[in-house]
Structure formats: C-alpha cells, structure tokens
C-alpha cells in the first residue's frame, strides 16, 4: 500500500480496507473476464461437427459384391471392407494410426503397407510391423436388406482385433 493510500484510508483493525477490497474485486473480475473471453473464442474455433463429412452413413454395396477372403477399397467413404473367408465383414478406416497417411492394400503381399513409415497391417487391421502404435480404426458396419452400410461418422479406436468386431450377414 502506498504512502498516499495509507494517508487516505488507514488500515482497519480487522477485515480488509476499502482499497484492498476494490483491488481484489478488480482482479477477480479481470480473471473472470479473461476466462470468459478465452472460453468464447475456444468455442468459436471448435470445428463444426464433421459427422457426415465423408457421407455419414455410406452404402458400400451388396453383400454378394464382396467375395469371401477379399479386401475392397470404398474410396469415397475412405475405408476398406474386409470380408473374411468365413463370410464375416469388417470396415477399416484407411487412416494410418501412426501419422495419418492413407494406407493402401497390397494385394500381392496380402497386407496393408503404409507408404509413410512402412507400418504394416493384416486384413483385420492388426499391426504386423511398427511404428504404428495400434490397429487400424474401425467404422460401425451393419447389414440391412443385403446392403452393407458403414457409419463413417466416428472412427472406433481399439487395442487389438477381436472376433466380436466381425459382423455376419
């Protein structure tokens, strides 16, 4: 407290002086205002929801379009449909879990090989070769009236392939 301030209003025996109270009030209000402005700007900058960005619910094709033991690239949906030899389906997001490159399916090698850092995945998305830290993400797949429908709104991250993820017609 400045000399001037002390002269103006002497410190009361207990409680806070008027000057100190005002200082605290200003500081608090300033902090609240900062948080508010920060919150407003952060909310403003939030990405508008990407749901349906690449189609939302994408019709991948008829069940019979996918021969057992095949991997098919659905380009506009940005995913692969794997059909296992036993007839089960899996929809894999094409984005490499390492650094986001689009992973191509290598038909002759029978695996996904990422061009960016050489990560490799099998047809169920499991990591065969690092540096990818986890299997390829899944999209929810459903089969209605013989149509294979894939919800590309939300990628599903997983630690490992599990037979429960496979969808049967």
């Amino acid at each position, binding site marked *: 407290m400045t000399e001037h301030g002390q002269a103006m209003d002497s410190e009361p025996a207990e409680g806070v002086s008027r000057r100190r109270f005002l200082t605290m009030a200003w500081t608090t209000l300033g902090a609240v205002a900062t948080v508010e402005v920060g919150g407003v700007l952060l909310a403003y*900058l*939030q*990405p*508008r929801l*990407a749901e349906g*960005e690449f189609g939302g619910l994408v019709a991948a094709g008829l069940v019979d379009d996918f021969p057992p033991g095949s991997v098919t*690239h659905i*380009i506009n949906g*940005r995913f692969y449909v794997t059909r296992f030899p036993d007839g089960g389906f899996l929809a894999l997001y*094409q*984005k490499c879990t*390492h*650094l*986001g*490159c*689009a*992973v*191509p399916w290598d038909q002759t090698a029978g695996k996904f*090989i*990422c*061009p*960016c*850092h*050489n990560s490799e995945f099998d047809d169920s998305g499991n990591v065969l070769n*690092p*540096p990818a*830290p986890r299997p390829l993400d899944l999209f929810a797949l459903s089969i209605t009236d013989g149509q294979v429908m894939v919800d590309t709104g939300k*990628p599903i991250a997983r630690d490992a392939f599990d037979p429960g993820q496979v969808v049967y017609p």
Partner: protein
Amino acid sequence: MHKIFMRLAYILGENPPDRAPRRSRCSNVPLMSDDRPLERMKERLSPPPLPTDDRGRARLVLDTLILHLHPARIPKRTLRWTYTWGLGGLAGMLIGILVTTGIFLEVRYTPTAPDAYLDILNLRSDVWFGDLLRNIHHWSANLLIVVAVLHLLRVFFTGAHRPPREVNWLFGVAMLLLVLAANFTGYLLPWDQLAFWAITVGTSLVSYLPLIGEPLGRLLLGGPEVGPTTLLNFYTLHISFIPLALFGLMSLHFWRVRKDGGLSLPRRAGEALEGTPERVTTIPHLVRREGIYALVWLAAIVLFSIFVSAPLEGIADPGLSPNPAKAPWYFLGIQELLLHFHPFVAAVVIPGLAVTGLVLLPFTDVDTSSVGIWFRSARGRSIALFSAGLSLLLTSAWVAADEFVIRWTDWLPNWPSILSNGVVPLAAVGLVLLALDTWVRDRLDGNAEERVLFLFVFLFVALLVLTAVGIWFRGPGMELFWPWAMPAAT
C-alpha cells in the same frame, strides 16, 4: 539549411559548433496565453524543414528512418564482415520480401479447396509474373529458415547469447519457431499432393501430445483430417497471426540490440580489447554495406527464382498417399527420428528437450570473458571441429545400425512400444551423450563452456545428418537408398 546540417551533425555525433541552447519541450510561455497554438502544434507534428535540393531531401528522410533502427555511431570492429556475416539483417530483408510478395500473392489466391490449387495453376500460366512472384516467395521463405539458423549459430559460436544479451536470445528462439510455423502453414496453401500429405504427417505429430493432443489437433485441422477448414485455418494463421507476432518480436529484437549496447565486439583469441573502442558513424559506414549486401542478395534471389520453379504436384487427393510421403524438408530431421523412436519420444520429447535446451543455453555458462571470440578460443575451435566429425560418424552409423541391426521391439517383445521403442532407445542415446561429456571433461580437461560447446555441436550436426538422410537417402517405403540409386516416387 544551416540548421539542418547542424541537426544532422548532432545526430551523427559530431560536435556541433556553438550549438544554441535547445528550446525547451514545454514553452516557457503558458499555453493559454499562446496566440499561435495551432501553428505550434503543426510545427511539432511535422518533420523538420527540408533542404532545398532533392538529394539532401531524400538523404534526410532516409537518414532519420535508418537511425531509428541503428545507433548514430557504432564500434568500428563490429563492421568486420567475417563476424556477423550480415545474417540478422539478411533475415530482416527476407521477411520484407516475404511480406511484399505475400501481399501480391493474396490478391490472386482463394483459400478454399479445390480453388486454391486452380489459383496456383492460374498463377503459373495466366497471371503476368505470377510464377516469378510465387517463386520469390517460396525460395525466400526457405532461405529464411537457413539464414535464421545460421544467425543462431553465429550468435552462439561467438558467445553473444550470454548476459546481457540473454533476453534477446530468447526473442530470437521465439522468432525461429514462428518462422518455422510460417513456413509450415504456408506449405499447405498450394493444396497439392505434396502440401496435403506433408501437413497430414506434420499435424499428426500433435496428436501424440498427452491429454491435449487430440483436441488440439482437431482444433488445428478443424476436423478429424486435413480438409477445407484446415486450409482456411492455416491461411489465416499464415497471413495474419504469425506475421503480426513476428513483427512485434522483430521490433523487440532490434530494440534490445541497441539497449544491450550494440553487437558484441569481435576479437581474436588472446586479443585484449582497448578501453574505448574506436567508433565510426553509421552513415555511411554501416548503411552503405547493408545496402550493397541487400542488393546482392536480392539480385541472387530474383535470378534464382527466374530459373528455378517452386515445386507443385497434382491436386490434393485424400485417398492416395504418395510413396514416400515426406514432411517439409526442415521437419525431415524429426520425421527421421520417427523411424527410430516411438512417436511420443520422436515428436514430443526430443523436440521439447531441444527447444528447452535452446532456451536454457544462455544460462548454462555465463562466463563472459570469451564473448566475441569465434568458438571461445583456439582450443574451442578444435573441440567444435572434433565434435562435428564425431557426430557425423556416430549419427550416420546409428541410422544404419538401427535400420539393419537394432530391433528393440523384437528384443523386448512383451514391453509396450512406448518403452521398448521409446524410453529404452532414448536412454541409450542419453547414456552415450553422458559418456561423451564425461570423456570431454576428464580426458580433454574441458571446462564448462567447452563441454556446452561440444554437446551443442554434436547435437546440431546430428540434426543435420538426420535431415540430410531424410531428404536424400529415404526412398519408397522410407527405406534407405543411395541418392544416386533412388527409385522414382509413386
């Protein structure tokens, strides 16, 4: 006329002959009773009366503006060409070129997909000198990174980062990061395959930050992947926020140079400095040199840009990553690290440690007795040279060994990859550095500043080697090839 020359002579530091007592800022006459308040205000707001001849007029304007950036007189020693190499001024000039060409590019560019790419094609084929302006902008931006890093090296190797200039060093580090950010955001704008995948790879690094990584990445990209929103975000950062921040820091940087007593004084090892260094006037000694230097560089950049085009590939295709997909060249050192470490270590821990190291550098050895001597001493020069050679050898050997021999994940099969491929190799590298430092201390009898010098040179050359490997030795599948046997990218 006479008044102007006296004023100039005063600015330039000559003793003015019988200078009349300066008129007080506040007139002795009270404002209320002044019968000419408007005239007086006008006089204060307007520049001093101009000389009658054109040459003198131009000269006066130029002189006063330049004297804002430079002191009127500078120590003659600091003019020594092989001390500064004119790097700071060159960086400033490049930023000037970038702002100028950038403004012109803006009026022929739309930050939306796919128009952005079509605009670049137009720039190349339909706009008069559009290609030239783009090339000048592109090459100046790349040169700026090189020049900024060389400037940092010059300051460190002459010890000029030490107190009292440590704050200016920090401004410099901040500006280096901003220059990298400016380059990175600009890289996306052509919206070609090169841009799209380099930015995809570069921004994916952000997602490895603990906790805030995922939301921060979404915020930056404006969605889960690089897309139209990303382009607009980056464009906005590139043309407003980053230049504004850079301008503010540049002002602070120049101001601190003067406040810290100008440049550090160059001298040879073992040479003592006389009490008061000989001073010369900034005009013409410094300004003339700067002018010539700037013109030569400008000519070189324009000439280069006439003959060498900035790269442009096919339009961005989110479904097809090129093979190999590489980050911009200045981040290839980090991308190379990604081949050797878990992403969290390669993209977060190591760059974080590097920036922290740069920030702490002026506080590691504060002995200012060697300021102004290249590499601290003759011995320091040998140590730096030795360190550079050793790093060249060890880093290349390590890259090759990690490619063909070392298999951390196979050796530690049941460990999570953050440990087996991250912490363990990092600890191994740390141990090697510690051993080298101990060796310099005990065997070479190195003091604090020599140990810092050794480690700095070692790590910097390691970064150079990793960057060079990333640029020239990595081919399809990010496998190692000799540059002359490099298969074509697909």
